[in-house]
């Protein structure tokens, strides 16, 4: 059954606001995908996911999402995750508006 492990980030939604966040290497929850910890080892990924799941007052629905290394840090590999870094395409709402990201 074992498929080769591909790099991941831990992502979730904030409990109070519902917005998308990523787990950074220093345990912060960051709204920026490129600040997430890129996890290349499967066992470590499981540990980080457990850590995320224990943050019950902070985030909801933590999971591992595929990612790859980019020039500025991790980048999503699937379009769903790419949309989650931005917000909806019909309005300038969500992260694209809330964050003044230099990479936007």
């Amino acid at each position, binding site marked *: 059954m074992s498929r080769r492990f591909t790099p991941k980030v831990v992502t979730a939604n904030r409990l109070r606001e*519902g917005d998308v966040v990523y787990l950074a290497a220093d345990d912060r929850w960051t709204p920026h995908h490129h600040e997430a910890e890129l996890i290349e080892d499967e066992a470590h990924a499981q540990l980080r996911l457990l850590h995320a799941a224990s943050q019950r007052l902070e985030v909801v629905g933590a999971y591992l999402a595929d990612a790859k290394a980019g020039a500025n840090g991790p980048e999503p590999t699937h379009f*769903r995750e790419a949309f989650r870094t931005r*917000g*909806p395409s019909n309005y300038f709402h969500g992260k694209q508006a809330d964050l003044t990201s230099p990479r936007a």
Partner: protein
Amino acid sequence: MYSYSDFDEAFVRARVAQFTHQVERRLDGSLTEDEFRPLRLMNGLYLQLHAYMLRVAIPYGTLSPRQMRQLAYIADTWDKGYGHFTTRQNIQFNWPKLPDVPAILSALADVEMHAIQTSGNTVRNVTADHFAGAAADEIEDPRPYAELLRQWSTDHPEFQFLPRKFKIAITGAPHDRAVTKAHDIGLRMVKNAAGETGFEVIVGGGLGRTPMIGMTVRDFLPVEDLLPYVEAVLSVYNTLGRRDNKYKARIKITLHETGKEEITRLVEERFAELRPLFGGNDQKLLADIREAFAPPAFGNAPTDAFDAFYKADPAFRAWADTNLAAHRNDQYAIVTISTKAHGATPGDATSDQMRLIADLAEAHGHGDIRISHEQNVILPHVHKSDLPAIHAQLLKAGLATANVGLVSDIIACPGMDYCALATARSIPIAQEIATHFDAVKLEHEIGPLKIKISGCINACGHHHVGHIGILGLDRAGVENYQITLGGDGSEDAVIGEKTGPGFAYDEIVPAIDRILRAYLDLRASPEETFLMAYRRVGMEPFKTALYGAEGSRNAA
């Protein structure tokens, strides 16, 4: 319009208080997410892709101006200044924050609204013909029955944990504007040989991954038998429904697996048991409800202003031709306000637009507003002499698009721009199709057409019953769109047929363009609509238009 009784009021307030407490306990950690999730869903609160989403019921699509203003107030105070009207006559707020939700629910309760049973495996919002009580072709206003069903189903102890969600739609007119055949129970008012009104009861329709057209289990159900009969259907389903497999849990599967004969026998048997238990209180209640839905006091005035404007102003004429429908009183018209301005998000209204609609309904519409399952807003009772004034005001607010029933009047589910279940986006596809056909000026030439788009197989956007249906999928990590043709959500309901392989995101608008140009070439006359032409010539010419002569053979 129906007003809450003291019981309704106390019930809804108690629910708000209860949920307020549950939110507090989630935020202070006394409830885990696993414990909290079912509680929030019982109150219409989802967690979506970028934010929470609150789904508020608009029973049978009917709203008062006061309620509409309150929705605008909620949008301004706790959301981003707009709301999204859905195919199930709900409104969804896309950006509430968890700690604010109790305040929103309380603001809803102030105007006799709530989010109860807008999620979960219960009887959902009962939907109705959006022209109810106004349409020229109507036998009887179906909304009193819808309200009776709403009261009976809300918090019904036996039906809070059904195998799956349960949707009931009702229409009082022979022309079906409520898609009754794609619901778990569809109720169509009919007259029997003796001239009495009753219901044709259709069971087991549904969209989703296994779309099915419902089957008639009773040709004529006397109106007095409505509650015991519906209860009988639900109780049989509650017993037989497949709880072992979520995808097989809808009544359509039960009906299919058990067989119509057997289900009908079980329902009739259960009905015979239940009938005597309904001692007549439901009929007393119904009589009171009926009074609340008495038609407004129609005025009597000349309609010359309408005729003059119609002759003189081409923009008004175009709008009148597409956006008005026949009222039972011929001095009156039913106005559909399109939320589908070319390039807009289907179903969205800003708080300013909501307030304008409320003002117009008060000034010219006997205080009545409807939300259609096609995601438009309706003023059901407008005297024709008021139409020029209404049109002028709508024009200023960007609400006068003359496209109801045309290529840009698209139903689109939220898709991957909002929905956590989506496999592709829907909204930008709808926006681009509308913008394209506006730019090439073919919209009015093409004529009546229903395009419906869903962002996953759940089919919230009704794509199976679109004349042209578009289903967004994920094909190896990229958005891909499958086209179906020939679907129909009317009284002649049909599930559309797949054309063949899907199209990439940037190929879908050209593909729709090819289909519609093929239609313009092959139609027998301008009166032959796309659907009629499709029924006459079948899939082949459209396949050729989509895939070329070679591809068409391969795709077959």
